[in-house]
């Protein structure tokens, strides 16, 4: 081919804005024409007046954007046979959030996914985008497709790109969310936790049954170094936005409302879908926290408005029964209960005074049998004394139960949480009262949360609602006083304290080994899991790592640790780029420091995760 550059030839470019059926626009060009010149002539020829600033040329055969407008066609190596497409770089994308809601927004299809993600997070007001990534969703069954059309999609495509870069916040909310009530509603969806899902919804979701199942999910992460279109993502495709690196840096509830909420949602679903294992006790606590969080976030304004008047120290006449069905006159004072033979004698010395501080309070309630027992385990030098208080009715039970709980924590009835404690006990009783057959209804409605919504399906089978509710209530008393932020933080803390927290699994084949094994990638270490034994057989910590190499040809990773420890493996369930990116990403996360937390070192991230593209 002649290279002179003066020779004219025909370049045809498809302009997306002319419609799918429009023929390509043909330009007569020379090889020394730069891309900017091509675009200029293209726009002139279409005779469409609009803002073309976001448009760029995509070279289909080479899967490459022609973003350097000063480069000549020759430099790019473009000839007459090139199939070029002139289209916007930002296109709508359906984005599934950790809370299960789908957004529609404009995402950049031309920059590396890492940058695309930064743009998305800026729009959604999520700090530290480096901790998140985009995941291809699981294939959904065909018959569910029609249901999809009915799914509510929150539309953010109207947000002008320019406003996203505006950093100013309006009432703690990015300015673009303040534009209309509709936008404000979207922000509320992002920043307020979702009500507990109906148990059927949880049961229908895909649940990984084994470590290998979990490993398959990790094969779906997008490559951060390449752009969306290069990875086969098209306009209006669906992707999931998820936290990928479990090293959450500098969470500040004041600025991280959306981040915290979405992180909680992801953690909650990982518990509900048994993506991460926990014990039964932990499950009950997670359930209790979910219950509390959903209550507090729904009535957040209320709980601060309802201020308690001074509570008088003495209760109205109570007739309570001790074990053995004896009636005494009970008085609640400070953190102690005193009991007397009768009301008349209550001016004198009580038969006994019991200080409830530090005691264990447990409910023993059966609504159907109208049994309202409070079980107290009171510590004494000799051991724990077990005492039952039998209340006559629900009202009395709620008051005394609330008082006992506060007293066990050393708080008196004058404490401001007394009324809310009573309220929550009532709503728990209400849960027991609700007919379990009606749990198909919307579970969000205040008093009628089905406790099955709060635990994984395993426990739907194991316990009936009636059995489950008191167990969650039991765990609930330790968290009922928490504020919304504290409850969210607590949930995340317990989640992070689980032994398997932060592990991303990949099925690999170690060099010299004939069987598949699982590599677990954690924020600080790699672990090797023997599928036969089902247990961790080896741990390598990153801080002992000297270097790692990727052989892109045979798709093998080799890692060298201090003390001449070398491991090598090929990846089975994920591309080795994904594994490479995981390890490099975690190294990157550990280099973050407070003084530089505002500026994301993109270059370093790509250096650590990019592989040969970064060269």
């Amino acid at each position, binding site marked *: 081919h002649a290279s002179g550059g003066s020779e004219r030839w025909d370049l045809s470019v498809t302009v997306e804005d002319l419609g799918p059926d429009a023929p390509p626009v043909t330009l007569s060009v020379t090889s020394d024409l730069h891309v900017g010149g091509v675009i200029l002539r293209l726009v002139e020829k279409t005779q469409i007046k609009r803002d073309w600033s976001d448009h760029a040329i995509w070279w289909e055969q080479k899967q490459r954007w022609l973003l350097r407008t000063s480069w000549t066609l020759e430099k790019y190596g473009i000839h007459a046979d090139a199939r070029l497409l002139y289209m916007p770089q930002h296109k709508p994308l359906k984005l599934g959030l950790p809370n299960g809601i789908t957004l529609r927004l404009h995402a950049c299809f031309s920059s590396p996914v890492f940058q695309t993600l930064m743009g998305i997070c800026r729009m959604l007001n999520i700090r530290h985008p480096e901790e998140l990534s985009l995941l291809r969703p699981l294939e959904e069954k065909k018959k569910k497709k029609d249901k999809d059309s009915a799914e509510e999609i929150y539309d953010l495509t109207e947000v002008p790109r320019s406003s996203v870069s505006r950093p100013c916040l309006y009432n703690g909310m990015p300015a673009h969310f303040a534009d209309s009530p509709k936008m404000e509603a979207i922000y509320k969806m992002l920043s307020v936790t979702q009500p507990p899902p109906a148990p059927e919804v949880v049961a229908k979701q895909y649940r990984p049954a084994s470590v290998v199942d979990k490993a398959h999910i990790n094969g779906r992460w997008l490559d951060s170094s*390449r752009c969306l279109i290069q990875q086969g993502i098209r306009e209006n495709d669906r992707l999931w936005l998820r936290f990928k690196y479990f090293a959450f840096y500098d*969470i500040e509830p004041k600025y991280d409302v959306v981040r915290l909420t979405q992180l909680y949602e992801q953690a909650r679903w990982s518990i509900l879908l048994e993506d991460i*294992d*926990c*014990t*039964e*006790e*932990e499950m009950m606590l997670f359930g209790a926290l979910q219950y509390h969080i959903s209550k507090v976030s729904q009535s957040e304004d209320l709980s601060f408005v309802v201020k308690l008047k001074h509570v008088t120290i003495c209760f109205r006449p109570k007739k309570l029964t001790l074990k053995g069905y004896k009636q005494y006159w009970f008085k609640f*004072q*400070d953190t*102690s209960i005193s009991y007397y033979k009768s009301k008349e004698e209550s*001016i*004198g*010395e009580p038969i006994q*005074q019991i*200080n409830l501080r*530090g005691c*264990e309070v447990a409910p023993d309630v059966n609504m159907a049998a109208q049994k309202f027992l409070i079980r107290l385990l*009171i*510590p*004494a*030098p*000799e*051991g*724990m004394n077990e005492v039952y208080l039998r209340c006559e009715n629900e009202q009395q039970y709620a008051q005394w139960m609330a008082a006992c709980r506060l007293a066990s924590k050393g708080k008196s009835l004058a404490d401001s949480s007394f009324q809310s404690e009573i309220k929550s006990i009532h709503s728990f009783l209400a849960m027991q009262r609700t007919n379990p057959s009606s749990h198909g209804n919307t579970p969000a409605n205040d008093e009628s949360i089905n406790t099955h919504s709060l635990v994984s399906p*395993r426990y739907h089978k194991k316990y009936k609602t009636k059995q489950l509710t008191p167990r969650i209530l039991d765990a609930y008393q*330790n968290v009922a006083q928490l504020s919304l932020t504290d409850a969210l*933080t607590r949930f*995340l*803390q*317990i989640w*992070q*304290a689980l*032994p398997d927290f932060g592990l991303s699994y990949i099925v690999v084949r170690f060099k010299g080994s004939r069987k598949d094994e699982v590599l677990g990638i954690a924020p600080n270490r790699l672990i090797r899991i023997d599928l036969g034994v*089902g*247990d961790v057989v080896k*741990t390598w910590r*990153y*801080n*002992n*790592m*000297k*270097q*790692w*190499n990727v*052989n*892109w*040809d045979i798709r093998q990773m080799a890692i060298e640790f201090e003390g001449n420890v070398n491991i090598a493996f090929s990846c089975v369930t994920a591309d080795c780029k994904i594994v490479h990116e995981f390890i*490099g990403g975690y*190294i990157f996360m*550990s*280099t973050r*420091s407070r003084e530089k937390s505002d500026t994301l070192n993109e*270059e370093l991230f790509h*250096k*650590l995760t990019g*592989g*040969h*593209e970064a*060269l």
Partner: protein
Amino acid sequence: MCVSPCKRICVSSFHAFPDMTCQLSRRPRPSNENSLPPRSTDHNKLIDTPQNLDSGQLETRESNSKSDLSAVSMSDICLLLQMDDIDAMFSDLLGEMDLLTQSLEQETAAPTSLPTTTTTTTNNNKEVNFSIFTDLNESLHELEDTDLDALMADLVADLNATEEKLAAEIQGLKVPSPPPPDLPPPPKGLSAHHPASPASPAGSTGSNVSTPASSSASSPLPPPPPQSTKPTKEEIEAQMKADKIKLALEKLKEAKVKKLVVKVLLNDGSSKTLMVDERQNVREVLDNLFEKTHCDCNVDWSLCETNPELQLERAFEDHENLVEPLLAWTRDSENKILFKERGEKYEVFKNPQTFYLWKKDNKALKAIKDKDKEILIKENFCGTSAIVPDLEAVLHLKEDGKKSWRQRLFQLRASGIYYVPKGKTKSSRDLVCFLQFDNVNVYYGKDFKGKYKAPTDFCFLLKHPQIQKDSQYIKYLCCDDACTMNLWVTGIRIAKYGASLYENFKTAEKRAAVSSVWTNRSAPSCSNPSTPSPTIKVSTTFVHFLFMMRYLLSSLSPQDVGGVPPPPPPPPPLPSTSTFPPSPPEPVFAPPPPPLAAKSSPKPAFPQQHPPPNFPLPPPPAMDFPPPPPLPPIADHSEAPPDFLPPPPPSFGSLSPLPPLPGKSLPPPPPPCFRRMDQSLPPPPPDPGFLPPPPPPPAPTAAPSAAVRPSGSVRKMPPPPPKRTTPTLPAGGGGGGGGEGGGGDFMSELMKAMQKKRSVP
């Protein structure tokens, strides 16, 4: 995708985490520096400036009304109970008045005659009072002379402060009281009547504190009525009444602060007695003990609780409040509080690998670098929540009520201890919860092989702090070796206390660094000459105080609702401008430590800036980690013994100039052979709690009680241990009214003891 010419690409070399080391090197934080005023080398100054005194024990106790000083004694603890309502307090005060006069009359009478006297003057609770006073005598006799002096100084300080405050408040009340109908009171009046004004110089007090405590006295003053508005008489009266009620409520609140006189056993068999109030945490108490014992203040020093009956021992965590766990002791308790070094207290921060990499072999653990240790600490303690080491071991569990032990595979998780049921997998969902940590503490068991036929002596147990006797609610676990035991006990502590442990460690480390500077700098100092008579001081102050209280209470009575408030109380018998005791400080009030800034503990400077990331390809084999810093606690620990030695007697005396017989009354300084624990070993076998060396050293007895109480007679009439749940007051009174009427006697007892002591030479 581009086809790269490079077939095999080395992606990146691995650089250390420079930020990590930076962050760690920044501790101790400078934020607390202000709390430690610069130490003056001039010891005379200590007495002149109240600010210096203030930084000692005083600031934590402020003023307390006399009424809370009714005393109940446990073997080593005097429980100072609070009064709950005004009536009780008032009658108590009157009772105390009577008692005081009586006790002043019969100063020479034997203390044993007192109980009878007192029972006649108090109108109720005869039995209770009797036993309390018997006990009080015991505990007072137990106190060493120095302790008595120190205690006296404490009490006097309290009284003075209260008196001061009250006087100020009453004066303040008086100001707006008789307002001319249309002339609001001039604001000047406030300062004129202010007791804190230097117009009343020290008279017979003998106080050498010259600075008036204006700051403490002025704060509770009710604000003067606004001048612009002309309040009606009714409004003013209502306001006055409200103010008075508010004042009284404040007083009551203050009176509720619980205090204990605590005897702490030292390793050499001697003891120190200090007063601890419920707001003080263990860290503060340790700091007090550092001043008193002149030890090297290293991070291993701990306050431990022992229970001989259960054969257990536990080191309190530095952030815990001391009073609360002590209140759980029964009245006949043999429990002790020990002050000793425990290497395992902060072992996890010295050698985190032992706990977090316990699965690795010993060789690998020993080879670990300091940098890796710091990373481990950062990873596990500096995140959103502390990470609990994932322990798993076959432990022996004592079966309820039996002396048989059964093996189970246990796992430690943040949420509790679990075991793997027979025939089940180790999967989380199959685990059975053995115990959660909300309501239990973890204790080391001693000689369980003998007591419970345990397989080994490496036992720990978990129980509610209130449980003091053997019970099915105590869970006993036995490990195969000491290492496993420490692993588990520490793991449980991390699960229970989380990042607080690390905070505590950092504070302790800082304290140790400060003290090492101080010991290097300490120079011989002059002794303090002033020794006023605390006896007279107490009685007069006390009478004055009673007048004040009476006045205050009567002014609250319904009769004065519409009228002019009663006249001010009779002029105080003593000008009371000082908040501080006239007696020079006892060791507790020792000079404040030197400023942190001056500390010279070796802290290598780290690059604060993250070096520009530069990842050469291929990586250089040499790692460019910053040099590992020597861990300060370890450095301290391995320091030569001299640091540990107490200063020679002269400087000792300078710190506590009060005792008339310094040589005799001061407890002996810890001997140089003071046992030191190997930092990697569990608590050593000989324990003062179980084989306590009595104050006169050469008589080790088998009976623990005799050891602590030299006077054998005191055990003759142990008070029946009343159930905690039994009310001690017939009506109305809340918990803690049981000591009503006792306060006066505690004081007179104290005075008597002082007199006696003074007459000895």
